């Protein structure tokens, strides 16, 4: 019974990808049951849109990780750091660009079925917003119900929350119960039906105890802190008077983003056979690559470079994403590879052009379809010595128009020492040639960005191994490659750095990547284009001359 509540709760919650961290490491059984569900992979025709429910796969991975989301995750220090920031009383007035990210992360942390961390986080969340201390969450809970002003705030914010949370249940039910008439949500009412009979003061202990036991009011088990930013801003009674509720905008933005869905366009570039399609499948845990969709009997190297773009709609915990994978078969495979980067640059600029045309339209769409390439993953063959001239030429040209993330492909052929040496060599050569890969140094916004990004910059290029086959290792089913001398686990950071790449691309820096594409690369293109046409450019933007000339192809 417990487990099916867990399942319902999980499926009902709208979350971003990052949720697995918080998924119950304390509930292995429901997760393991879910693991056996095969991934829903319906056969598709080319570029048709498809929904893949990633939740089952995601929980699979969370079970293999037992780190609570609060503690700094050794696996991805940067991600862990940002999480700590969130929970550690981050000032609301830091860079606004973080807002969207934060809202998603905030909500993602809320899925917690284990009671005490939930309460603790619950307590933690409040200080972040209302500067109260974290010592006695229960007290605060009880406190909130009594004084009037917090209730009023709760009231004002509840209408916003309840339609969003729809079917989800929140532990703040007791709180929202107070202004019962104001809560229209049926779900809330459902919960209230459980609780109304109990007198108000008694609800509190029952809530807490229910959260503890997860038996009394299973509905209340859901994300304690989802409503925190808005519901329980009422921290201690003393501090609530100064609370305005501006941070409720996070929730509003989150809702809007969830409704709209996200778009991500990734391009993969590299010689044939380096595992590009496999890596895409592994990253998104579904068959998103060109090969899964256009099955060819045998791999043939095309005579010229082709650009193949395949879109999928994937969904995870209510968050929809339109993922487009742009493949470039034929790159670097010929004998004479001169100018093989030109079709790719043309494609990228074409996407910018399309967006620009939409933008300068008189009657333009409310939401311009974004087909700009947000990120280009460049696959470096694991020779172990240094970059090849082709790699240098390509990256030098493309780092100016798109975010490049270089990865070392098929890294299971390098021992750890060789890997370190190779990475060092590559970093040196990138520096020597003035190639600025993502995350670019010049786009760091502030000190903490720089700190996080420095950590990443020390690790690029990531040495990745991709696999879409599962094997049994130590009683767990993991993605990996099985050889005669051992099994390489894709998600094990001691084996390869796939997890870091996934965190960078999806869990922490996805929005940043998109921002840089739209606000920097696209703007550069736009300025150049508009200058070319001698049209009046509204903002000179002080773009220095050398930037403009740098884009001369």
């Amino acid at each position, binding site marked *: 019974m417990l487990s099916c509540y867990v399942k319902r709760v999980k499926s009902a919650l709208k979350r971003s990808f990052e949720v697995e961290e918080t998924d119950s490491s304390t509930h292995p059984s429901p997760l393991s049951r879910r693991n056996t569900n095969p991934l829903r992979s319906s056969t598709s025709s080319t570029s048709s849109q498809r929904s893949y429910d990633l939740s089952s796969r995601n929980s699979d991975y969370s079970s293999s990780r037992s780190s609570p989301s609060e503690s700094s995750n050794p696996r991805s220090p940067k991600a862990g750091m940002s999480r700590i920031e969130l929970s550690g009383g981050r000032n609301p007035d830091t860079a606004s660009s973080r807002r969207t990210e934060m809202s998603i992360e905030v909500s993602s942390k809320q899925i917690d079925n284990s009671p005490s961390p939930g309460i603790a986080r619950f307590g933690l969340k409040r200080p972040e917003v209302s500067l109260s201390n974290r010592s006695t969450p229960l007290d605060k809970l009880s406190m909130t119900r009594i004084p009037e002003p917090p209730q009023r705030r709760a009231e004002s914010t509840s209408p916003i929350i309840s339609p969003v949370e729809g079917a989800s249940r929140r532990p703040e039910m007791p709180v929202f119960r107070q202004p019962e008439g104001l809560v229209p949500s049926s779900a809330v009412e459902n919960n209230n039906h459980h609780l109304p009979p109990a007198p108000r003061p008694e609800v509190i202990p029952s809530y807490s105890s229910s959260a503890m036991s997860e038996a009394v009011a299973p509905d209340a088990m859901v994300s304690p802190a989802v409503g925190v930013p808005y519901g329980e801003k009422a921290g201690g009674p003393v501090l609530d008077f100064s609370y305005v509720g501006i941070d409720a905008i996070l929730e509003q933005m989150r809702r809007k983003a969830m409704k709209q869905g996200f778009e991500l366009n990734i391009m993969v570039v590299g*010689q*044939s*056979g*380096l*595992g590009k399609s496999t890596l895409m499948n592994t990253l998104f845990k579904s068959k998103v690559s060109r090969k899964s969709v256009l099955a060819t009997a*045998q*791999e043939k*190297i095309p005579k010229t470079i082709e650009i193949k773009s395949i879109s999928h709609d994937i969904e995870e915990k209510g968050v929809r994403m339109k993922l487009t994978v742009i493949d470039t078969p034929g790159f670097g*495979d*010929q*004998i*004479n*590879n*001169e100018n093989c980067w030109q079709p790719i640059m043309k494609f990228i600029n074409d996407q910018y052009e399309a967006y620009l045309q939409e933008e300068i339209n008189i009657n333009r769409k409310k939401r311009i379809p974004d087909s700009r390439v947000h990120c280009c993953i460049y696959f470096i*063959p*694991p*020779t*172990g*010595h*240094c*970059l*090849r*001239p*082709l*790699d*240098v*030429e390509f990256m030098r040209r493309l780092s100016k128009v798109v975010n490049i993330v270089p990865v070392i*492909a*098929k890294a*299971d*052929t390098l*021992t*750890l020492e060789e890997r370190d040496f190779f990475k060092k*060599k590559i970093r*040196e*050569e990138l520096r*020597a*040639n003035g190639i600025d890969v993502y995350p670019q140094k010049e786009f760091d916004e502030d000190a903490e960005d720089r700190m996080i990004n420095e950590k990443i910059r020390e690790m690029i290029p990531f040495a990745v191994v991709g696999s879409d086959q599962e094997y049994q290792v130590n009683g767990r089913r993991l993605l990996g*490659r*099985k*050889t*005669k*001398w*051992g*099994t*390489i*686990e894709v998600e094990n950071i*001691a*084996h390869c750095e796939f997890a870091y790449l996934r965190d960078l691309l999806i869990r922490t820096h996805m929005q940043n990547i998109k921002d840089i594409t739209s606000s920097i690369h696209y703007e550069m293109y736009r300025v150049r284009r508009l200058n070319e046409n001698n049209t009046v450019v509204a903002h000179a933007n002080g773009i220095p001359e050398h930037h403009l000339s740098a884009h001369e192809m």
Partner: protein
Amino acid sequence: MTTNIRYKSRIPVKTEDSAEEKQYVGFATLPNQVHRKSVKKGFDFTLMVAGESGMGKSTLVNSLFLTDLYKDRKLLNAEERINQTVEIIKHTVDIEEKGVKLKLTIVDTPGFGDAVNNNECWKPITDYIDQQFEQYFRDESGLNRKNIQDNRVHCCLYFIPPFGHGLRPVDVEFMKALHEKVNIIPLIAKADCLTPNEIKKLKDRIREEIDKFGIKVYQFPECDSDEDEEFKQLDKELKECTPFAVIGSNTVVEARGQRVRGRLYPWGIVEVENQSHCDFVKLRNMLIRSHMHDLKDVTCDVHYENYRAQCIQEMTSKLAQDNRMESPIPILPLSTPDAETEKLIKMKDEELKRMQEMLNKMQQQMHDKD
């Protein structure tokens, strides 16, 4: 007196069986004599390694011969490589084992396939091989043939990257340019990045493509029917295993309580000499222990002869064009127009002409040298 003793010492004589002694001639000891002489003389072997940089060629060569031929090698970085052309570098090392001396020459081809534009990147290699043939040809046709140094390339190991799905265009072009000049043995390099299934698929694919493109790689000689079963079995296995998937390493690691040569990964240890891990042992056995002499024979008998015939044909056709009217050898009038004898005479004439031309050429060259 002395002759008797000599006679006795050569042939194992059983004084009792005089009947047998009468039947026994004694040339069964010829192999021993050859053996003794060769051991004294020593062997030489020239091996060429070709492939993109970073395929593990140097490591493999070091592993095969248990030496360190590349101690002072400097690897270029990407900038320097942009303007690099294909070079030919020779490393020579003298190895001795159980009294047998081997003069091993490794011909390395740095820069092959590394540039952005790899058009004709195999040309320096084919030129080098032709040069060696030409030099041997000249030496052979020269006056002093005592100490000819054989620099001809006996075998070329070609490293195919394991990352692709088969042969790439540059692989096909290279092998087609070289398959008539040298014994090509294709290898799958860095095989530790492939699972057993992938290796099998790749090998099948490569064999298919080699057939499709008509590339003549080195074929193992057929077993004689009187060889024992074990040898035949081994031979069959060897043939089915091509192209060999190899892993090279010269570092010693501890695995299963033993010290073995291998590569240490966080997920396990790859043993170079473990047959279930890779085909290194098969390659070594084939290259050194069983087929080294055959490689040399094929080089001498097939590739060199091809080259020589081609060369002579070119020379004759060139000279025939130049000296159409005059021939150094007067054509004798035939008394009896018999077709067969006519043919014979014509053949002999041509041979004579050829020899004359060669002599002329030699003399010219000697003149030029002086």
